């Protein structure tokens, strides 16, 4: 079995990619995907720790996180549709009605 650190480093890298995606990318759907990437990196951390500690808790938590991520994706896509109906664009730079 690969040591715990490998998994932790891998999930940290995936999490960082997700964060970078949210900050850099200019399309709501890609940003949403990046957020999902962050949550799945967390899932990997939970699983790795659960295996290392020999406890089931972490594995159960992953199911909760997956459910929450699904609910969040649904709401996110609904909001994306409602915003697309108004302005025919998914570029965050065009969100100028309210100044940031």
């Amino acid at each position, binding site marked *: 079995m690969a040591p715990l650190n490998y998994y*932790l480093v891998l999930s940290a890298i995936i*999490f960082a990619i*997700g*964060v970078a995606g*949210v900050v850099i990318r200019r399309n*709501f759907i890609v*940003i*949403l995907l990046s*957020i999902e990437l*962050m*949550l799945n*990196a*967390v899932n990997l*951390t*939970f699983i*790795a*720790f659960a295996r*290392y*500690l020999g*406890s089931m*808790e*972490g594995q159960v*938590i992953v199911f*909760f*996180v997956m459910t*929450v991520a699904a*609910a*969040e994706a649904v*709401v*996110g896509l*609904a*909001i*994306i549709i*409602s*915003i697309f*109906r*108004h*302005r025919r664009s998914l570029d965050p730079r065009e*969100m100028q*009605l*309210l*100044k*940031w």
Partner: protein
Amino acid sequence: METNLAPLLPSAEVVLTALSVLLLDLFIRKDEKGLLVWISLIGLALAGGMALFLWGSHEGAFQDSILLDDFALFFTELFLGAAAITILSSVHYVRETNIHEGEFYALVLLSTFGMILMAAANDLILFFLGLETMSIGVYILTGMWRERSQASEAAMKYFLIGAFATGFLLYGIALIYGAAGSTHLGRIASALGQTKSHGSIILSAGVFLLFVGLAFKVAAVPFHFWVPDVYDGAPTPVSAFMAVAVKAAAFAGWARIFLYQLSPLQSEWTLPLKALAILTMTVGNLLAISQSSVKRMLAYSSIAHAGYLLIALVAGGESGGQALLFYLLSYAAMTFGAFGVLIALKEGENDHEAYSDFAGLGFKRPFLGMAMSLFMLSLAGFPPLAGFTGKFYLFRSAVVAGHIDLAIIGALNSLLSVVYYLRVIVMMYMEEGGAEGKPFARAPYLYLAIAIAVLGTVYLGVLPAPALDLSRISFISLH
């Protein structure tokens, strides 16, 4: 093993009400939707009655991952009250804006359920689930006025930033789980007591990430940039709900996690928290001064008030906890009132949210003018109103804990805030030609909500003793 369901009673009642509202919404005609308001209010009242009935008990359910103590019940009552006032003040608003009523009330109730769970959770995962139930509900509420482009934009911003913050919070929970071997707060605390060296970097990183996630939720500077846009674009009753209830829920979680269970780590996070409090107060107040829209001003003022509340978290201990709970009560009353008056100014498509729209309101609608003056004076911290008493105890707790500098900066900040709060009063009584404001006959529920807020603001200011005792008892029940 027998499962004790008593701790779930109030929250289960709220969920049941939400589901009945959703179901009934399908079967009744559009002009009968007023019924849904009453069902929601009765459901909230029943849940409030249950919480009162359970007062003083100390039980746990599901291996103590949900706790029923006075702390949880105090916040349960606060959230139920906040939901009731939100519903009262949105009755006319949702009809004017063509928001689907049944879904609106059901979502308010479901978010309230999430908040109750957050205050009662003794397990980080349960806390996370409560937080998400609340947040997802509020994301939708923000964007529910779909005909308006600003509302969708606000919902998008809120959703992206909320989900982003969730990622950090969850990563923090995962790391804490790895270091402590459990997400249960009690077991984390005992793991902290046993070993100091084991996995301490992972633990610190986890606590730091949890900290960042919560700071996003309470809108502490530098994680505040979404607040003005989201409050501005959201339907006004939802802005009030967010400013009061969502913030209170995040503080409830913060108090239970950091002030109680993780208090052995206190020395590590006192300094960053102190910096956060000072930044939040000062930046919030400075930016509030330059606003031309009262709604945005209230958004920045809610950031500043989050800063005051952070003082109580820095101070910690019994006096800090008492001040935190009492200030949340006072803040709820005055903020709901101020947003309520703002709702009363709305006419059709025109929101009337600028300072100039308040011109002459004191003569045209004497009650609204009087109420708004009270709320503004209270927010600025004038005696004998709730805001003064609340701030007094906040600053006192800081002094008791030896953070005199924090108390001084807080007092200077509330002096600064007088500038923009008084501007509203000046507008209302010394200028002319603003918006008309709804008369009582057109918005009786809204007037009722404002009247409740006035009573709360005056009562908590003049006779704070019972509420202070209540806050102290509730906070002590954590230990």
